[in-house]
């Protein structure tokens, strides 16, 4: 007799669009007890990168907040970000990281600030099986599937 699929489970979080929201997101990921530890780690790493990009490139958000949903449906684990921004779509199209093809920009070293840049979205793409940005007239959405 085939094993029955895992039941659906999901959890939501509302975050303010500021850098310190990353701590609340990390706690959220750690608390996803319907997922195995490896999936919680994937969500924590990839989700933190997406959150960081939203805070940096989508602000000011309409209402000042964004919503996050982690879910398990059948054999699939997803993480979704919902927000409303007038600026994120132009950032995302220039970055080329949200789509099915290879990333358009490789990580590079910024000598002025002595920092590597562009690593975060590469990590997201390697951790997930799908990373999609869907702009909308009422809401922008970023989906990750693991």
């Amino acid at each position, binding site marked *: 007799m085939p094993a029955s699929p895992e039941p659906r489970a999901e959890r939501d979080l509302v975050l303010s669009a500021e850098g310190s929201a990353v701590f609340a997101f*990390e706690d959220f990921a750690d608390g996803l007890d319907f997922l195995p530890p490896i999936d919680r780690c994937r969500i924590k790493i990839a989700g933190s990168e997406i959150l*960081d990009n939203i805070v940096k490139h989508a602000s000011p958000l309409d209402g000042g907040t964004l919503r996050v949903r982690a879910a398990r449906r059948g054999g699939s684990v997803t993480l979704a970000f919902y927000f409303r921004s007038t600026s994120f779509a132009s950032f995302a199209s220039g970055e080329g990281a949200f789509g099915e093809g290879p990333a358009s920009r490789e990580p590079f070293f910024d000598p002025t600030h002595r920092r590597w840049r562009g690593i975060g979205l590469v990590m997201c793409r390697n951790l997930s099986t799908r990373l999609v940005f869907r702009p909308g007239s009422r809401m922008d959405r970023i989906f990750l599937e693991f």
Partner: protein
Amino acid sequence: MTQLDISVRNDHHRLLLSVVGPINSYTFTDFQEKIYKAIAQADTAVDMEHVTALSSAGIGVIMTAMEDAETTGHGFAIVNPSEVVKLAIESTGFGERFPVVKTLKQV
């Protein structure tokens, strides 16, 4: 956990940094400052057993530290990384370039 604690001590002619907590976009500057300072002075090992998050900002600091270590001729190693650290390193796509060891004896 919101606080990053980094202690530095001498350990057999090298500096050992013990890191506890999340290395994320909000905390990485403290990690950056301490790791760059250590590598400029001596061989450096970073115990990451109790690191609860590692973002791309933290990965970037480690990559720069690896280059600084080459430039200064000092040794550099990441010791006993937690699961989330291992996964973050692997997710770069070039995890094999990171000097990861299980114990200090391997440094």
